[in-house]
């Protein structure tokens, strides 16, 4: 182990997917609100 955190790819992918998903969703929301 040598004190290094093992694994963790799942958490990393989840964080990136959630963040990019939120940014795109917020962008789309702003676009929809600007049209209404």
């Amino acid at each position, binding site marked *: 182990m040598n004190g290094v955190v093992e*694994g963790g790819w799942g958490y990393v992918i989840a964080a990136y997917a959630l963040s990019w998903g939120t940014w795109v969703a917020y962008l789309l929301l*702003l676009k929809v609100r600007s049209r209404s």
Partner: protein
Amino acid sequence: MKWEAIAGGLGFAVVGVAHAFGLFVAPSEAAMGETGRMLYLHVPTAWAGMGSFLVAFVGAIGVLWTGGKRWDALVESAVEVGIVMSVLLTVQGSLWARPTWGTWWTWDPRLTTTAVMVVAFAGVLVLRHLVHRPERRAMASAVATIASFADVPVVYLSVKWWRSLHQPISNAGTVDTLMLVPFLVACFGMLFVCAALIGSRWRLAMSRLEREDRASDLPDRPVPLSLEGRP
């Protein structure tokens, strides 16, 4: 094409390249392993959140100084974007904390002051919904924004001031170039993303405030129909 579309497109492209590099090319962090790859996401998001709150603070000063609705729209838009970024920051931090600290959340000084910051700025948006008179709303939310902003430097310095589980402020000199470059590029790209989001949201806020201005020309209550002059 509006400047926000260009800045947003450019910003997302730059951040995307930096993230791809950080995920697939940069080496894993010496102690944190693969979870250290959150660095390229988490820190730029934190800067974006705090940067947005700084813009809101400047807007609030502008409101108190001039009373102009352009500044008021800037407060509304920057606070909203700051909250989106800061909530994301908290979720990212939680996803990082679970494999490294063994917990999703702990009342560490950095985490606690960040939570206070998010709640305080969310209060600004709630206040804007509760106060209907435009001038009073602008003044009240400007004062609340300035008061909320007092916590932002505390968030930044919390890891210096108190014993914290959270990482201290990093020294760029100790970071490998292959890690430093995508990190700095992601931070640079997020500046454009943030500017684009605040700009787009500012347009929305301005159009709503202008509609409100036009509506304020109407009488406070419907004027009763007069029957005078009828045969």
